[in-house]
């Protein structure tokens, strides 16, 4: 086993104490990239070879030189007796929505394919200041618009390390796949409707969507500004807590970053679940979606294997001392996707207005006599189909004459979704939950190409995650077991505002309770096939 498969927490501890050099860790990470990633995503990436189809393709930009300088600095500072920080020597990756000064930042879109960020995101600065080593920028759905990472303009797109014929999930697919395959220990992703949790679940890793406002959004290319939450992907709960403790907290550059004190997540993580009230909701064990032909809503129970994994986890937590409360009503979460179709599109179309070929990024070549012609050609050529679809929908449902009917109504229902959570978590209420336990995704990872192109079905992959974004509450996903096909199944714990600590405790308790189970020893196929 390579050092790169160790928890970040241990690597940082060893590097800080001079037991391990950051350069050695970096070498191990780069070796892993060379072994499993294949070629990075590029514009017009060409046809997929057989080899391409067996690789992960997590990266868009590998920043090996920058990483080497950082690793050497970490080692020098350790030798000088300085405190390097809680992420000393830990190789990390960033979803390519995070601005990193001096490095290309593409959002996996042609329209930003030549954009070099002149500034860094607050989170990136905090991670680097904590001693982390930046391995590179990883792939995603174009502008984070998707649940499979297949919409990236940078091809080959990321594949699932557990089965490269399947999607890694999305939109933080590169982050999840990189972490799962040991290409770095930690990654920062973003979650607007499930974009951290669903790929984390698909790739068998831990992912946290923090409370809205817990982590600064400054410097992260926006999708749905009222929904976007930056957060960590990690291989275990403690590493996720470590990363959150580095990035959380107020930021003078983000007016929505709440001035709520950041607790010591690591100190509290092993306090167990004794006395914790954990809920199960029937509304999260079935999905609702419209029949594409009739428009009628079809309700379907989730597959048995997904329900079983969820209920088994409830038993484990109960055995560890938690109280399980069943039949928590979350009726409005069924509207999560329709509401999301409206709100996220309105915000996305506005956020994408700035990509017009004037100031940065791609501009269509040609001698334009009319500014509007330049706009149209630039945007037509620069955006892929999914951004176009989202822009058009956003334009439509926020147009003056339709806004009342669609946008205002969606905001209303969003508040009702929030109210369901408030009732479930109300300390004086009927349920008094500390957390709600649900599956993360309605299915295990699906095959590449199976859903891509059907924008409706793809969106419904976020059905179990999107409500937390509407409500703003934190949600943690962690591996719960494997499907009959040997694919990861993720579980989700949703808590009240700023209760990340509770979620970490419960997730960590589940990890401890299942540490010796056989499924935990199973490695992603790309690793076993590479003899790793």
């Amino acid at each position, binding site marked *: 086993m390579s050092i790169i498969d160790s928890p970040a927490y241990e690597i940082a501890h060893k590097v800080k104490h001079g037991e391990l050099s950051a350069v050695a860790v970096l070498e191990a990470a780069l070796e892993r990239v060379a072994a499993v990633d294949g070629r990075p995503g590029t514009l017009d990436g060409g046809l997929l070879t057989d080899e391409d189809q067996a690789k992960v393709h997590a990266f868009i930009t590998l920043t090996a030189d920058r990483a080497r300088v950082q690793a050497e600095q970490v080692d020098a500072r350790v030798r000088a007796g300085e405190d390097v920080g809680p992420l000393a020597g830990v190789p990390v990756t960033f979803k390519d929505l995070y601005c990193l000064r001096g490095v290309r930042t593409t959002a996996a879109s042609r329209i930003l394919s030549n954009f070099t960020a*002149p500034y860094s995101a607050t989170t990136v600065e905090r991670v680097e200041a904590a001693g982390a080593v930046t391995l590179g920028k990883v792939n995603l759905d174009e502008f984070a618009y998707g649940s499979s990472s297949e919409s990236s303009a940078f091809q080959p797109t990321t594949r699932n390390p557990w089965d490269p014929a399947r999607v890694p999930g999305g939109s933080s697919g590169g982050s999840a796949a990189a972490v799962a395959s040991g290409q770095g220990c930690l990654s920062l992703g973003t979650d607007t409707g499930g974009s951290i949790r669903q790929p984390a679940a698909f790739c068998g890793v831990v992912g946290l969507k923090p409370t809205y406002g817990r982590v600064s959004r400054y410097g992260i290319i926006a999708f749905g500004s009222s929904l976007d939450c930056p957060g960590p992907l990690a291989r275990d709960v403690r590493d996720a807590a470590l990363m959150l403790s580095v990035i959380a907290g107020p930021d003078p550059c983000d007016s929505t970053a709440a*001035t709520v004190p950041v607790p010591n997540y690591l100190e509290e993580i092993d306090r167990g679940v004794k006395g914790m009230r954990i809920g199960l909701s029937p509304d999260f064990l079935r999905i609702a979606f419209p029949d594409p032909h009739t428009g009628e809503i079809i309700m379907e129970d989730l597959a048995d294997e997904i329900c079983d994994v969820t209920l088994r986890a409830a038993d484990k937590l109960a055995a560890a001392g938690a109280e399980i409360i069943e039949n928590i009503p979350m009726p*409005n979460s069924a509207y999560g996707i329709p509401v999301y179709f409206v709100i996220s599109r309105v915000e996305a179309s506005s956020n994408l207005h700035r990509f017009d070929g004037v100031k940065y990024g791609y501009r269509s070549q040609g001698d334009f006599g009319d500014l509007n012609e330049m706009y149209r050609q630039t945007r037509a050529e620069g955006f892929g189909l999914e951004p176009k679809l989202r822009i058009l929908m956003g334009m439509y449902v926020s147009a003056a004459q339709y806004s009342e009917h669609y946008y205002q109504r969606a905001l209303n229902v969003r508040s009702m979704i929030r109210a369901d959570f408030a009732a479930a978590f109300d300390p004086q209420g009927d349920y008094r939950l500390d957390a709600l336990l649900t599956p993360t995704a309605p299915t295990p990872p699906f095959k590449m190409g199976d859903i891509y192109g059907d924008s409706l079905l793809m969106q419904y992959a976020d059905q179990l995650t999107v409500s937390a974004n509407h409500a*703003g509450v934190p949600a943690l996903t962690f591996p719960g077991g494997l499907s009959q096909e040997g694919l990861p199944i993720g579980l989700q714990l949703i808590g009240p505002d700023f209760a990340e600590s509770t979620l970490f405790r419960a997730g960590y308790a589940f990890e401890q309770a299942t540490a010796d189970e056989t499924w935990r020893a199973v490695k992603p196929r790309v690793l076993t096939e590479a003899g790793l």
Partner: protein
Amino acid sequence: MTDEITPELFAKLVNLAAFAFDPKEAEYLRTELNKQLKAIRQLESVALDAEVPLASRGVTYAPESRPPLRADAWTPCENPDEILAQAPQVVDRYIIVPNIPHTELE
């Protein structure tokens, strides 16, 4: 059910969004939009709860968790040239774009 977004309405949206499409792309997008709108129309049947206050975001900010407004103090940007360097066309520090034609009044 008739399509909510007709080809005419679609063309108007495309113009507002400053896009251009070939017919095949346009038809795909229009089909997907109409599919999505069918899902969105589920919301029409929701009995809205007037008691629930409307907010632009999920989390409510208690007064003590709202960041203060910015003090009016100058913090010069260290690298405006790096920002300008990203522009596709620059002459004498001006960003260049095509003109917008005007017409004279009679």
